[in-house]
């Protein structure tokens, strides 16, 4: 994964140079209000556009202006992006760090210029910054809770994400935290546990097939760390006629996963609404720009669970576990259309599908 990123970064180099020459894209609005800046790590992923829309909405509602820069997946471009943003003297800079270590000198420059900073979604450990994200350990807990509720005892299989991604381990610590008492009591047995290269669904499928072979199908529940891998798990279960009778977890609110939930093949998908994240962060930014102290923002806690255990102010949002029961939430939120969510669902079996 890492090498891939380097590779892509290399390929993007020429584009980056071009963008650098043009300077930072700026869209200054009415100079009367405050100025909120965002340094994005990459706009190649659709989701950041969703975040941006939510942030812009809050900023505009307060009569402030919004400026931004896109690092296009390059740590060095992000450093110069931030310098460019500082020049424009905003009140707050939100940073979606591409590299949470390499970004630290840039963050220091922000504080030295007397500007407040927010670590958006990706943590960097600077005591002067506010960290706002979804609670990843919480995601693991929510997954485990949903599966535990569906199957409080039996053989559990754990399909973990890529071993190189710290999130995979974060998630797993949340999962074990919830299941530990039942495991210690011997009610839950860990029969298969494996990392999945690249979080790839096809790898997860092979792993699940091997697990079922080894266990001669005696698997009662599967904790999969995301929805993509859950699709592989469900395909493997389907081959044994077991899909639907074995609870399976996931996260991300993948459209295909939400459809599987409606069909009863997947139990839960932990959904992190990036619009909520954008909204909360923008509200915090606006409040900080208007002089509210970080520690007195609503929902702020002290957080030191990062790599270097630096104590920071943080807002940790709780994600939503989407199950058959509350499938309506994602449809109402406009995240997925009813047609897509309910494709192939028999009438009258799922409330949200009618």
């Amino acid at each position, binding site marked *: 994964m890492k090498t891939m990123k380097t*590779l*892509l970064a290399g*390929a993007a180099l020429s584009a980056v140079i071009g963008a650098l020459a043009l300077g930072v894209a700026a869209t200054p609005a009415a100079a009367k209000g405050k100025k909120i800046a965002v340094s994005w790590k990459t706009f*190649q*992923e*659709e*989701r950041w556009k969703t975040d941006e829309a939510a942030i812009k909405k809050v900023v505009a509602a307060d009569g402030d202006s919004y400026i931004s820069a896109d690092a296009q997946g390059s740590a060095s471009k992000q450093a110069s992006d931030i310098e460019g943003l500082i020049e424009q003297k905003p009140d707050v800079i939100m940073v979606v760090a591409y590299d949470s270590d390499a970004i630290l000198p840039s963050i220091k420059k922000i504080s030295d210029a007397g500007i407040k900073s927010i670590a958006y979604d990706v943590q960097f450990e600077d005591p002067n910054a506010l960290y706002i994200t979804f609670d990843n350990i919480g995601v693991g807990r929510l997954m485990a809770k949903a599966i535990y509720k569906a199957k409080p005892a039996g053989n559990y299989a754990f399909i973990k994400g890529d*071993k190189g991604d710290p999130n995979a381990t974060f998630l797993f610590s949340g999962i074990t935290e919830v299941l530990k008492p039942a495991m210690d009591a011997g009610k839950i047995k860990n029969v*298969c*546990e*494996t*990392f*999945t*290269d*690249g*979080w*790839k*669904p*096809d790898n997860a*499928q*092979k*792993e699940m*097939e*091997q*697990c079922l*072979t*080894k266990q001669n*199908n005696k698997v009662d529940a599967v904790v999969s760390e995301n*929805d*993509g891998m859950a*699709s*592989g798990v*469900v*395909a*493997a279960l*389907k*081959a*044994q*006629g*077991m899909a639907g*009778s074995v609870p399976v977890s996931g996260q991300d609110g*993948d*459209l*295909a*996963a939400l*459809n*599987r939930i409606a069909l009863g093949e997947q139990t839960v998908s932990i959904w992190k609404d990036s619009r909520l994240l954008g909204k909360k962060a923008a509200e915090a930014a606006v409040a900080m720009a208007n002089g509210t102290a970080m520690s007195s923002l609503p929902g702020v806690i002290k957080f030191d669970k990062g790599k270097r255990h630096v104590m920071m102010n943080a807002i940790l949002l709780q994600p939503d576990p989407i199950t058959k029961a509350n499938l309506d939430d994602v449809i109402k939120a406009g995240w997925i259309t009813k047609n897509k969510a309910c*494709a*192939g669902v028999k009438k009258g079996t799922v409330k949200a599908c009618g």
Partner: protein
Amino acid sequence: MTDAAEVSTAHLLATESPIKRFFRATEIDTRLLGMVGAMLVIWVGFQIFGKLITGEGVFLTPRNLWNLLVQTSAIAVMSTGMVLIIVMRHIDLSVGSMLSFVGVLTGVAQVYWLAPWLGSDNPMIWVVGVAVALGAGAILGAFNGFLVAYAGIPSFIVTLGGLIVYNGAAWWVIRGETVAPMDSYFELIGGTPRASWIGSEASWALGGLVCLAIVVGIVLNRSARARFKFPQRPLWAEAFLILAGCAVTLGTVAVVNAYAWPPLIAERYAKEHNIPVPPGGLIYGHGFAIPVLIALGVGVAMTFLATRTRFGRYVYAIGGNPEAAELAGVNTRKITLLMFMTMGILVGISACITAARLDAASNSLGQFDELYVIAATVIGGTSLAGGVGTIYGALLGALVMQSLQSGMTLLNFDSAVKDVIVGSVLVFAVWIDQIYRRRQS
């Protein structure tokens, strides 16, 4: 000096050991035999290791072997093309991300265009879906080939670029979303749902046909050689080849048939068809899975292409000496372009297998597959220097790679350890192969 060489060979023939004489007479590739041996060692090793660690060996069960074949098929299909690419002294690093892109295209075509238009479960959907995959693969492959052959850019660079481009393109089409579910007929290509395997009777029939083909092939070859009064293999060697070929074929059929339908699926089937369930449960054999048949079919077709057609002959000649091939009047550029296009079509087939098997298409499908495809090819005895390599070697190489991975997953190996072992085996296999070649020449 030629006389001396001939005499000494004749002398050798008379005095060599029975084992050597056996291999010379049957013309069995000893490298092939070595690889089969190594694979059997791996299989038995996993079985014993499993027994020691978990108390029961699962590796050598029909179920695991059946799964192993299905899991190998997508990589195996691509490795048959990669052999010829590497034989031509080229490389294709883009197959993995091309698979993502093509898989995503066929997924989108089925789920978002065709299903709403034709209504789901229209049998045209899978036909068009497969055509989209093969067509897109052919176009992308031909484009790679054009840049290599006519623009003169090294294939390493062209396909490295392709790796990045197709990766981005796959993302761009669906924005990271997973497209699911696939068409229900299309799914059969993947070997997951019921009816995507052909059952015991058909498998026996197929095995019988293959046996018959082996006999007919050997007889035809003998008569052709007799026509020109060429030296023949001894009759006992022919008999041995027929027996060994049939034994392997029918043995494989027996294994895939011995894996019975999962109880839940058999029960459901019985209920649907009002079949009374006997006390021991219904026992239906799986037989060959469709993706395995596709991979075997591709293997046969590619072997035919490589050994029985002008195109294949030119591919090897170009690999042996590109300048000589050009001077002999071979249109090397055209052959290069067509070879990359063939590779693209094979990627299209693999994309169908992978997406159908997962019953979903996402842009992470196939990522890094190029590494496994190249590794399978190289383990299968293809020389990166070009000119040397066989299709069956690559197929076996793919099976060895997947055996290692599946076996270690069964034993709950840490995935870091898995990577270390798979990588080491790759290097070790090539080292052994080189020692072997050096001793042969």
